[in-house]
């Protein structure tokens, strides 16, 4: 696909605005904000009528100790219809991938096929209890066992546990396994190498596992790991290197096999952060590159709905050498063909989660993998990369790239040019909301000033990508010609630009009866003043 100059003429701008117009009628340019349910309360109103009581009535004070009784909770008193309308209206204000495009870099906000939801909703799965006897949950155990087999084949790392429930949780599990393996071999090591482009969870994982996180720089020209810096810092005190492939700039680490070889030469494990596995799924097996361990964000790569904080999945995949250290129990297939939990794991690091992790996430991923099959998964990686490069080539002349080369599943724009117009990346992100798009990830990775990180994923059509590019180019034009429009954005949402600084410095997190709006504001101001004066 040849790069073509961006069209910043009126036609494109109109196309972008037409897109925003397709997102429902706006109430005078702004949707109506929905009050809190507390503010709808009317004394004495209630949502249901209970049948007559068929046991003797007792005063509540006889049933609950007086000290535990509270009358100050001010619970909302509302009718059933009030409740239904309130939450339905809130749900209409929600932004979701089922309704809109979500180019949130590093988050892989792909569409989650409804087939996976249907399977997860089957009563046989939905009504399981984790304490049921094994013989009554053979199907669920088989799902966990076979998911392990599938992930082992996809990653080239045959030891798998689906117990971790998030990416950072998978990292922590992996580095604790590295620690256990070093200790068992009598090797005392203190350091974990981490590139400066890494997700912040990597150094946090190293620290939580008792290691010192040592930062390795990146090559400004290639956007890859600074190989000389890596070699200088690699020694026999390194327990592991945690490396993200492709890295957070969306670039493949072309020296990865050499990095693995040098690390192994000094007994250092290679942990691959699988956050960006969507670019490689079906294309490259990390195990074949020399990686020893990798976690997979099931909720990203294998399509479990996410964005609201979970439930997610952070399955850990390891070499057969590290397999004995996996969290216990593991799901095993017995000689008679039945499935069960194997608790006899003397080298295991132990449990990392109650019961067996988020089974529902594992189930959705299992369904997703089987429904796509080998060829389908190959297309996932290929189209994720194709879509990212298509969008990159449409945007690159209006928005300079931090590293201008073919990318993998995502790319990072450098928003510093906005400063010439008194703007920042934040203003661009807010303006995108007016065009009907969820803003991309901004200010990450930390190595890119004014970063704008875009990941379209494989599930978006060319038409969606064109419309999004149209909006981005229209905003670039606005930035040059009417920067104030960006300063004031968003102007189409129920509430405009939030004061994020004040929200962080003086968070006011609690609704209190009788204090609303300006009253709460002046109270908070007064408190702040008092606090400041008390200090000085």
């Amino acid at each position, binding site marked *: 696909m040849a790069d073509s100059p961006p069209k910043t003429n009126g036609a494109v701008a109109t196309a972008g605005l037409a897109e925003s117009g397709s997102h429902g009628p706006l109430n005078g340019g702004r949707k109506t904000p929905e009050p809190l349910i507390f503010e709808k309360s009317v004394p004495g109103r209630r949502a249901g009528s209970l049948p007559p009581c068929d046991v003797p009535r007792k005063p509540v004070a006889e049933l609950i100790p007086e000290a535990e009784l509270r009358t100050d909770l001010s619970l909302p008193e509302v009718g059933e219809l009030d409740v239904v309308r309130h939450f339905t209206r809130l749900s209409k204000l929600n932004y979701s991938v089922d309704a809109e495009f979500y180019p949130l870099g590093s988050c892989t906000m792909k569409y989650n096929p409804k087939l996976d939801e249907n399977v997860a909703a089957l009563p046989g799965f939905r009504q399981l209890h984790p304490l049921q006897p094994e013989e009554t949950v053979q199907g669920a155990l088989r799902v966990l066992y076979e998911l392990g087999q599938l992930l082992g084949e996809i990653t080239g790392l045959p030891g798998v546990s689906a117990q971790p429930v998030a990416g950072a949780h998978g990292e922590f599990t992996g580095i604790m396994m590295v620690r256990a393996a070093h200790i068992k071999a009598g090797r005392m090591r203190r350091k974990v190498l981490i590139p400066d482009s890494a997700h*912040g969870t990597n150094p946090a994982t190293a620290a939580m596992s008792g290691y010192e996180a040592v930062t390795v720089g990146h090559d400004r020209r290639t956007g890859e790991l600074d190989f000389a810096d890596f070699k200088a810092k690699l020694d026999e005190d390194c327990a592991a290197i945690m490396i993200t492939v492709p890295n957070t700039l969306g670039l493949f680490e072309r020296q990865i096999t050499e990095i693995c070889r040098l690390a192994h030469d000094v007994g250092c494990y290679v942990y691959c952060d699988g956050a960006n596995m969507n670019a490689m799924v079906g294309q490259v097996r990390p195990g074949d590159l020399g990686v020893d361990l990798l976690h997979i964000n099931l909720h990203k790569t294998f399509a479990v709905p996410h964005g609201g904080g979970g439930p997610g999945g952070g399955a850990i995949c390891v070499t057969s050498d590290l397999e004995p250290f996996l969290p216990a129990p593991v799901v095993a297939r017995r000689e008679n063909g039945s499935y069960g939990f194997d608790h006899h794991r003397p080298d295991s690091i132990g449990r990392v989660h109650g019961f067996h992790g988020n089974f529902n996430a594992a189930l959705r991923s299992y369904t997703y993998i089987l429904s796509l099959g080998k060829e389908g998964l190959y297309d996932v990686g290929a189209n994720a990369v194709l879509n990212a490069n298509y969008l990159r080539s449409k945007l690159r002349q209006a928005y300079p790239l931090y590293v201008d080369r073919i990318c993998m599943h995502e790319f990072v724009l450098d928003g*510093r040019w906005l400063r010439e117009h008194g703007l*920042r990346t934040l203003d661009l992100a807010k303006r995108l909301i007016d065009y009907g798009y969820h803003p991309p990830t901004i*200010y*990450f990775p*930390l190595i890119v*000033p004014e970063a704008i990180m875009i990941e379209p994923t494989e599930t978006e059509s060319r038409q969606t990508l064109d419309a999004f590019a149209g909006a981005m180019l229209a905003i670039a034009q606005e930035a040059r010609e009417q920067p104030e429009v960006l300063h004031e954005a968003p102007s189409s949402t129920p509430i405009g630009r939030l004061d*994020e*600084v004040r929200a*962080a*410095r003086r968070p006011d997190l609690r609704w209190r009866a009788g204090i609303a709006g300006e009253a709460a504001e002046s109270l908070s101001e007064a408190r*702040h003043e008092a*606090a*400041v004066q008390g*200090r*000085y």
Partner: protein
Amino acid sequence: MASPADCKYTKEHEWVRLEGETATVGITEFAQQELGDVVFVELPAAGSPVEQGQTFGAVESVKAASDLYAPISGQVLEANAALEDTPDAVNKDPYGAGWMLKVQPADLSELDSLMDAAAYDSYVQGLH
């Protein structure tokens, strides 16, 4: 804007100013601009040791949390308690009211390894 001539600077954008026996430490104008509005500063207690080139605390803005690196080794005499309630002093007056630590230096020769104002200004110029 030229950086104050009475300070020395690190590549991580901290400054240190020696007044008598006491070294005062903070972050530079460039650092505060890059961070954006500072919302929280985490500093060590008086009496804690700091080591040149090692982290001594963290600064959080609405954009990101960043480690702070000590420009000089020694013992913390005082941390700027006013930043707990007015972290914006780091933005408004990074070389004055936004100071972070007062340190009893262990080895004054460490200052020789830092940049002076002119060297730091041209270093920052190269980052743009």
